[in-house]
C-alpha cells in the first residue's frame, strides 16, 4: 500500500516536472554558426567568445523565462555546405529557435534560404554585409526571420554621396574593392549621386592584394574626374591612392570608413591627403557603449577591438530579450518581439546583468523597452536592417577632425529621400 502510494507520488511529481518543463524547456538553447576555423577563424573565434559572453551576462541576470540559456556553437569552416548542415543540425537535433550567424554573406544566405526561413527560425547575423539580404527581404522571401546588427551599406553610400555633392564635386570617379561589400556600396553610391545631382565618370573594381593597381587607376582617370570616391581597405587603398596621385589624379578624395586608419594615412603621407574627406559610423557616445567596453575588458583583459564584437553581443542580447518578451520559445515569437524590445519609444535599458534584470522587470509589466547596446540604440527596419548614426571627418595636418554629425533619424530621412 505504502509502496503504491509512493509510486503514485513519484508519478505525480513527474507530471509536475513535465508541465513545468512545458512552459519553458530548460535549458533554452541558442544556436551559433560561426567560422571558428578556416580562413576567417581568427576573427570568428573572438566573435564566438563574445557571443558566449552575452549569454553569460543574461544567465547572471537569471536567464530567459527563469531558464538558463545554453550557447551551442557550431563551426562553419567558412564553407556554405558545412554552415548549412550545422544550422540544420542545430534546428532539428538541438531544437534551437534562433540562430546567430554566420559571418560571411556567402554562408549566411544559404543558411537563411535553406534552413532558417523554411523551418521558421530567426537568424540574426553580426557581420554579413551583402545587399542580397535586403533584396531578398524586399521580395518577401525572408518572411521576416532575417535580422542583422551590422549597419548596412545603405547609409554609407548615402552619406558618401551627400558629402561628395555638398563639397561641390560634379564628376566623380569610383574605385571599389571587388567583394559583396564593395560592389554593393559602389552601386548604391552611383544611384545616390545621380539623385543628388552629381555624376560618375567611371566605376572601377579592383581585386584585393595586388602589387600594383596602375591599370585600374588609369581607367578611373578617364573622363577627367574632379574627385575620387574610394572604397578600399588600408593596404590596397594606400597603393591605389599613391598611384592615383602619381598619375595626376585630383587630391579631392572621398573615402570609405575602413580608410579612417593611421596605417593608411602614414602609408600615403598625410601631407598629400589634406583634401581628403571621409565618413564613418559615429560610435554613439553613449554610456551603454562605454559600459560594454569596460565589461568586455574586465572579462577578456583586452579591449573589444575587432570586427563583429559589438554587433554579435547585441545580436545575442536582442534575441534573448525577444524570447523573454514573447513568453515562449518559438521562432515566430522571437521574430514578432524583436521590434518590441528595440522600440524607439520604449524605456531604455543597457547591457550588463543589471540592465538585463531591469529589462525583464519592465517586460513582465508589459511595457515596451528600447535596448541600447554595444552598438548604440538598434532600430530594425522592415527588412531586418539597422542604421547607425554617421559622422564626417577630414585630415588637418596629422589630426583627424570631425566635420559633421548625422543622427540615426537624420540618416533615415536622407535614405528615405534618396529611395523615393
Amino acid at each position, binding site marked *: 500500500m505504502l509502496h503504491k502510494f509512493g509510486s503514485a507520488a513519484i508519478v505525480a511529481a513527474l507530471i509536475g516536472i513535465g508541465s513545468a518543463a512545458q512552459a519553458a524547456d530548460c535549458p533554452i538553447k541558442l544556436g551559433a554558426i560561426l*567560422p*571558428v*576555423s*578556416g580562413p576567417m*577563424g581568427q576573427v*570568428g*573565434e*573572438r566573435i*564566438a*567568445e563574445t557571443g*558566449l559572453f552575452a549569454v553569460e551576462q543574461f544567465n547572471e541576470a537569471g536567464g530567459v523565462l527563469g531558464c538558463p540559456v*545554453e*550557447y*551551442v*556553437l*557550431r*563551426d562553419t*569552416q567558412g*564553407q*556554405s*555546405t*558545412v554552415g*548549412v*548542415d*550545422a544550422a*540544420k*543540425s542545430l*534546428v*532539428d*537535433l*538541438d*531544437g534551437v529557435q534562433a540562430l546567430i550567424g554566420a559571418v*560571411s*554573406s*556567402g*554562408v549566411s*544566405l*544559404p543558411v537563411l*534560404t*535553406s534552413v532558417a526561413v*523554411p*523551418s521558421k527560425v530567426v537568424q540574426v547575423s553580426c557581420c554579413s554585409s*551583402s*545587399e*542580397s539580404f535586403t*533584396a*531578398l527581404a524586399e*521580395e518577401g*522571401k525572408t518572411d521576416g526571420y532575417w535580422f542583422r546588427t551590422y549597419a548596412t551599406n545603405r547609409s554609407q553610400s548615402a552619406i558618401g554621396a551627400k558629402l561628395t555633392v555638398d563639397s561641390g564635386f560634379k564628376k566623380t570617379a569610383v574605385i571599389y574593392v*571587388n*567583394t*559583396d561589400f*564593395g*560592389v*554593393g556600396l559602389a552601386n548604391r553610391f552611383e544611384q545616390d549621386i545621380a539623385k543628388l545631382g552629381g555624376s560618375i565618370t567611371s566605376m572601377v*573594381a579592383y*581585386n584585393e592584394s595586388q602589387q600594383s593597381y596602375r591599370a585600374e587607376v588609369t581607367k578611373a582617370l578617364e573622363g577627367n574626374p574632379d574627385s575620387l570616391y574610394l572604397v578600399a581597405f588600408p593596404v590596397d587603398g594606400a597603393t591605389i591612392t599613391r598611384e592615383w596621385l602619381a598619375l595626376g589624379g585630383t587630391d579631392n578624395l572621398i573615402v570609405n570608413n575602413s580608410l579612417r586608419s593611421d596605417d593608411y594615412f602614414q602609408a600615403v603621407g598625410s601631407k598629400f591627403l589634406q583634401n581628403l574627406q571621409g565618413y564613418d559610423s559615429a560610435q554613439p557616445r553613449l554610456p551603454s557603449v562605454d559600459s560594454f567596453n569596460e565589461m568586455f575588458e574586465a572579462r577578456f583583459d583586452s579591449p573589444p577591438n575587432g570586427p563583429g564584437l559589438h554587433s554579435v553581443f547585441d545580436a545575442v542580447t536582442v534575441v534573448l530579450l525577444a524570447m523573454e518578451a514573447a513568453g515562449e520559445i518559438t521562432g515566430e515569437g522571437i521574430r514578432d518581439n524583436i521590434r518590441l524590445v528595440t522600440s524607439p519609444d520604449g524605456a531604455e535599458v543597457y547591457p550588463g546583468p543589471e540592465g538585463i534584470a531591469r529589462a525583464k522587470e519592465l517586460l513582465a509589466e508589459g511595457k515596451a523597452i528600447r535596448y541600447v547596446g554595444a552598438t548604440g540604440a538598434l532600430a530594425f527596419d522592415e527588412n531586418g536592417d539597422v542604421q547607425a548614426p554617421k559622422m564626417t571627418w577630414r585630415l588637418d595636418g596629422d589630426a583627424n577632425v570631425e566635420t559633421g554629425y548625422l543622427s540615426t533619424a537624420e540618416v533615415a530621412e536622407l535614405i528615405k529621400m534618396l529611395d523615393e
Partner: protein
Amino acid sequence: MIGLVSYIVFFLILSLIFGVAVLGLNLQWGFTGLFNAGVAGFTAIGAYTMAILTGPARDAVFGGFELPFVVGLIGAMIASGIGAVLVGLATLKLRHEYLAVATFGIAVTIQLVCLNWEYLTGGTLGLIGIPNPSKAWADGPLAQNALYLLVVVVVVGLTFAALERIVKSPWGRMLKAVREDDVAAASLGKSPERVRLEAFVLGCMIMGLSGALYVSFIGYVSPWDFLPIVTFQIWTMLIVGGSANNRGALLGALIVWGVWTMSGFVISRVVPSEIQAQGGAMQAVLIGVILVAMLLIRPRGLIGEELHVSRHARS
C-alpha cells in the same frame, strides 16, 4: 524524432549531391586515370547555368529565363560539357600531376570569372531566388525536403545505372586499357587522346549536374560555394570510398560527409561551451584523424575496384 528524420533527409540530400560529383570524378580518375583537380570549377559551371536558366529575371543581370527544373539540369550538363571540351582539348596532352596543376588553375580561374563577371553571375552578390521545384509540390520543410530527396535519388540512380553500364561496355574496357597502359591501347588501334577527352567531358558533365542540384536545393549561388576546398572534399570521398568502383564513390560521399558533419555535432555536445570557440580546431583534427585511420585500414578504399576477368574468357 521528427527532428532526427528531418535532419537525416537533409543530410542525405547534401551527401548524395556530393555523391553525383564523386561519380563524375570516379569516371575520370577511377576508370581513366585522369587527375582532375578542378572539380569545383565544373560544378560551378553547372550551378550557374542552372541559376541562369531557371532563376527569376533580374535587372542588370543576364538570364532569368524561368525554365523548368529538368531543362536546367540538362542545360547545366551541356554547359559543363562544353567547358570540359575546351579545357580538355587544351590540357589533356598533359599527364598526371601536370594535368592536376592545369585543372586546378582552371578551377580557380572559373571561380574568379564567377566573382568578376557581374552581368552573367551577379558577381560577389551571387544570384538569389533560384526556385526549388519541391516547394511547389509540397508543404512544410520536411515534406519538401523529402520530395527533393526523391528527385536527387532518382538522378543519382539514373547516373549510377548509366555509369555502371558504360564502364562494363567495350568503351569502358577501353578506359581501363588507357589507364593501365596507353601505349598498349594505342597499339591495338585505339586512340588514347580521344578516349581521355570523352571520359573527361562525360565526367565533367556529371559534376555540372551535381552543381545544378545543389543550387536548386539551396536557392542561392555565389562564388564562395566553389572554393578549392570543395575539390579536396570530393577527392577525399572518392579515395575513402574506393576509386574505380561506383558503389564505393557513393559510399565515400556518405561516409566522408558524415564524418565532416558529425564531428561538429559531437564537438558541440562534448566540449564545454567555455572552450567551444577552440572546438573548430578540434573538429579539423578529428576529421583528419578519422580519414587517415580509414586509409591506413583500407588503403584501396572501403570498396575498391572489383577485379574482372573477361566474361568471354570465363565461358
